[in-house]
């Protein structure tokens, strides 16, 4: 048996798990696993041809169980997602080494479990990404779910509660998928991709509808698609810092990967478009697009109301998933590329943002947006990281988030979907407002007295953050680099591929060249700087040296409020926040409680003896007469 480079990669990931398991209690364990993630990345680089349209790499391992063949393989799509996974793990793990882990241990955290959970997450994600048939996909899916549960639950307390909620949702999703797999197996006679491809072609619409709903909902749970999104924000936010950076970067994208594989590659967008919803003008594809749009809007505006930085970011993670799905459902060259590129871009800035917020927590002990402020002078580099991150998140130039969102908008306009376009713009508006709240309440505004002595985050944390910042900027300047990988991934799932240049895309309906955009932008900055520095000398004062109306303000006077941010806006839209989904969730829970009570009542009170006697009498009567 010859090991392929995929097998090597999986072995590296397995070794990482083993090292975390066996040596995880040593002092240098963090560095050891970080180096091993680096080795995994090298293993991935060895397969770099996959990122440029190379042929799929098969694993040498396959199993036959109960008449099913399980096999594993890597193609362009898997490679693209694996790159993000391992990259996020590497930087997240690096970030955790050194000072963060000492602080974590001081607070009673279980570092061994943390490293182990991270390594398990990476391994299970790679297994999922490598799945070569629907059954191995499901196995990988379940492994990812439970590994994620471990990472989310390990902080204890509220985090465990959130993780429990997650696993209930995830199980419901997994069971929907399991049901879908059973249905596919019956109609295709096999769970191999080829067999499914041919079976879908001759499938009637009812059957296909059922499959689209089952798989869409099942995979949608992990993506946090509406209305299955409630679990995600608390679960991610309460995971220990670097863990939430990792989860926020990639975990829920596993749902998108599976949707791409099953709904787009196996079922085909054309077949999904065939499914009309009776009595309306829309079909299943439009339905997916609208779900994506609502997933953008509602969680984004929920994020705006959050008063904890981590929760705010985690809610955005849900919303940004909507853009990815939206682009991929539009499924033309620009939309598909935009959706997939957004996976990469989102991973970079989301990880950077979570890391920056964790750095603030590390120094100040809180992520409560009402208890921070004015840290820009104390933690300038963390501020820079957060600034770059939120520009990316809001989708503004010159950062990478702009490119992917531009591609999605462009494709919506090209395909004549103005309503969807408008709706996604509303989502972006909410993003901009809420990320401003984030940066203002942490870094701008009035410095608190208790934070006067706060120092910049340690270098062990800053270096990974700055690397991410560089990636965000560079891939914003040269989006052609990740777009090449995206093109390879699009090819692997059979979607059209755009014409890529180093600075963006070339297209008859509108091209984008970021090198020009950024050049012009920086030209503008240069003009601004000239004006600023030619205005003469300015005087530097201490941050706590403040005056109002000619009076000196002592440091304990709060003259600037971060509480009840956007009061005016909330006055206008506050009525829309009704918690309908929470109500729905509670309703389901109450229903189960009620039914459970009823069933227990049956067991406590029912007289089975009585039934038995009745049946006996009936049978005797039957025999006699």
């Amino acid at each position, binding site marked *: 048996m010859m090991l392929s480079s995929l097998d090597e990669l999986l072995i590296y990931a397995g070794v990482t798990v083993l090292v975390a398991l066996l040596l995880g209690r040593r002092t240098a364990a963090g560095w050891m696993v970080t180096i091993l993630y680096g080795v995994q990345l090298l293993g991935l680089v060895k397969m770099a041809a996959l990122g440029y349209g190379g042929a799929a790499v098969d694993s040498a391992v396959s*199993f*036959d*169980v*109960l*008449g099913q063949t399980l096999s594993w393989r890597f193609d362009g799509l898997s490679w693209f997602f694996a790159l993000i996974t391992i990259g996020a793990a590497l930087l997240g793990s690096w970030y955790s080494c050194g000072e963060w882990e000492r602080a974590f241990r001081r607070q009673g955290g279980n570092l061994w479990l943390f490293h182990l959970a991270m390594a398990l997450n990476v391994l299970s994600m790679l297994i999922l990404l490598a799945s070569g048939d629907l*059954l191995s996909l*499901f*196995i990988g899916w*379940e*492994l990812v779910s*439970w590994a994620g549960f471990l990472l989310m*639950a390990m902080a*204890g307390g509220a985090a*465990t509660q959130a*993780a*429990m909620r997650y*696993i*209930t949702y995830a*199980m*419901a999703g997994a*069971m*929907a998928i*399991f*049901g879908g*797999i*059973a*249905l596919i*197996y*019956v109609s295709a006679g096999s769970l191999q991709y080829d067999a499914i491809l041919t079976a879908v072609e001759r499938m009637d619409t009812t059957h296909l509808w059922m499959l689209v709903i089952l798989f869409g909902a099942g995979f949608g749970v992990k993506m946090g698609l509406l209305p299955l999104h409630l679990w995600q924000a608390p679960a991610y936010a309460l995971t220990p810092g670097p863990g939430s950076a990792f989860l926020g970067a990639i975990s829920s994208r596993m749902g998108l990967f599976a949707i791409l594989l099953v709904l787009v590659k196996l079922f085909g967008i054309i077949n999904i478009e065939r499914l009309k919803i009776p009595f309306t003008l829309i079909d299943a594809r439009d339905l997916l697009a609208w779900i994506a749009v609502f997933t953008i809007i509602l969680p984004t505006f929920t994020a705006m109301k959050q008063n904890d930085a981590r929760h705010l970011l985690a809610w955005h993670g849900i919303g940004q998933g909507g853009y990815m799905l939206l682009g991929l459902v539009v499924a033309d060259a620009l939309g598909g590329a935009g959706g997939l590129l957004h996976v990469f871009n989102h991973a970079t800035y989301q990880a950077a943002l979570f890391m920056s917020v964790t750095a603030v927590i590390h120094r100040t002990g809180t992520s409560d947006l009402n208890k921070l402020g004015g840290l820009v002078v104390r933690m300038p580099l963390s501020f820079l990281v957060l600034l770059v991150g939120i520009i990316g998140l809001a989708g503004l130039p010159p950062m990478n988030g702009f490119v992917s969102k531009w591609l999605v908008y462009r494709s919506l306009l090209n395909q004549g979907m103005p309503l969807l376009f408008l709706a996604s713009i509303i989502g972006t508006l909410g993003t901009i407002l809420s990320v401003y709240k984030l940066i203002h309440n942490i870094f701008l505004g009035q410095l608190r007295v208790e934070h006067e002595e706060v120092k910049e985050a340690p270098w062990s944390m800053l270096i990974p953050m700055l690397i991410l910042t560089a990636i965000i900027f560079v891939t914003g300047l040269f989006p052609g680099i990740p777009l090449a990988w995206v093109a390879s991934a699009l090819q692997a799932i059979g979607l059209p591929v755009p014409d890529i240049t180093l600075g963006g895309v070339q297209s008859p309906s509108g091209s984008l060249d970021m090198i020009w955009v950024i050049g012009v932008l920086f030209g503008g900055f240069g003009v601004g700087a000239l004006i600023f520095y030619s205005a003469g000398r300015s005087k530097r004062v201490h941050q706590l040296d403040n005056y109002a109306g000619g009076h000196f303000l002592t440091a304990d006077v709060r003259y600037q409020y971060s509480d009840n941010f956007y009061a005016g806006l909330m006055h206008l839209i506050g009525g829309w926040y009704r918690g309908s989904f929470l109500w729905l969730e509670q309703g389901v829970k109450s229903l*189960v*409680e009620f*039914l*459970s*009570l*009823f*069933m*227990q009542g*049956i*067991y406590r009170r*029912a*007289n*089975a*003896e009585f*039934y*038995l*006697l009745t*049946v*006996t009498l009936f*049978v*005797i009567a*039957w*025999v006699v007469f």
Partner: protein
Amino acid sequence: MSGMIVLPIVLPLLGAFLLPVLMRASLGLGLWIGPAILVYGCWILGSQWYGGATLPFSLAIGGFAPPLGINLYVDQLALLFAFATQLLGLLFWPFKLDAETPRRQALMLLLVAASTGLALSGDLFNLYVFYELVAVATFGLVAASATGAAYAATIRYLILSGIGSVLTLLGITLIYNQAGTLNLAHLAQLAPERLDNSLGLSAFLAILIGVGVKAELFPVNTWVPEVYATAGSRLSAFLAGLVSKLAMLIILRLLVLVFHQPEAIQVMLVLGILGVVSGELAAWRAKDMRRMLAFSSIGQLGMIFIALAIPDGGGLLAVLALALHHLVIKSGLFMLADGWGGSLERLRGAAKASPLAAALFVLFSLSLIGMPPLPGFWAKFTLITELAAQNSPLYLIGLTVFLLSTVVEAAYLFRVAALLYRPADAETRPEQLPRPGGLALTTASLFGAGLLAATLFVTPLGDLLIHVSGQSGNAALYIDTVSPGIPGGSR
């Protein structure tokens, strides 16, 4: 060589009667007798499997050929369950030493003998006799734990079981009345002309409900929560793990050989679905570990009934896989519940006191839910593909219920797991935390090791189960084996 097969029935039976006397003579010797008999039984059955005899074979007892005489029918399925009986008897052996020891050990031997007989019997009358013996032995064992609650639970169990037996007997009488024989192979030949009518159907239903008392069939399973919660956990493990499956075996044989009416399996399907719904939902609110496990066991057996209700033997593989899986898991879980009785709230922080037990609980729970690649996943996979293939609304409802109940199952099992790993109250000292006893934990670890081994060797295990279920679903083979000369044996 094949005559040896009676020994695993006869020896424990003999032991059961002699043990009290022997123990009075020499306690030291008496204590060794029971385990020795069971080890010998395991060895005999194991050697029958590996080359001792060509399977399946039939053994006429007393020299009269069936259908006149009674016979034992030994195929892989029967042998598997007989072996499991002896092995579990050994694992759950009541080692505890007190005044009740002779009685308890004798009853345990009786239970093993009767259960083995149940697995191997080839005619309905013998099945009934062994079934009654099982009942008698369990009454004694449940009552032997000698608490008030146990007596109350036993009384209920006794009444239900008694009526169930009457109903079973009624069904058997009807069959005899129609067919004039109780030999299963003979019945299989006569069934198409004699029993394929409404009287035959009512006979089957009577047996189904009657035997269903032990197989935890809804709605005659109301004894389950109380008995499992009050009886010793070793006994609960034996009852939930094994005895329920043996009752299931009777129904399986009847379905394969005698009854092929669609109404029969429909009734079973509906009752199975109700069992899953009621069991899993009731477990959601259960406030103590053993009740939770009892309700979960009802749900799991409901799933096996659903699998059994798949026509034309399509579900046999799923039945077998689910039954064996549940046997291992529930036995292991009940062993853990040994030290974790009482309110669930008490378990807070118990992982600290016994990390191994908590890890085993998580392992068993994951497999029970069907987390791949643990064996539970493969068992459930075989079930849902068969259910989906039926393409009839009732089976699809069964599929939906099955999937939804799995979500509920995951929720309540992992609520407990989270409780185990939550930090204990500050004032609770570590030694106050509940923990399973050493023996129970060792037994549970054995089951855990078995589970992991099955995960690793799932490919050969799957092939084996396919073979076993194929053999047990082959009615013509059964008839040919028991009465080779009779023409038309291959119906």
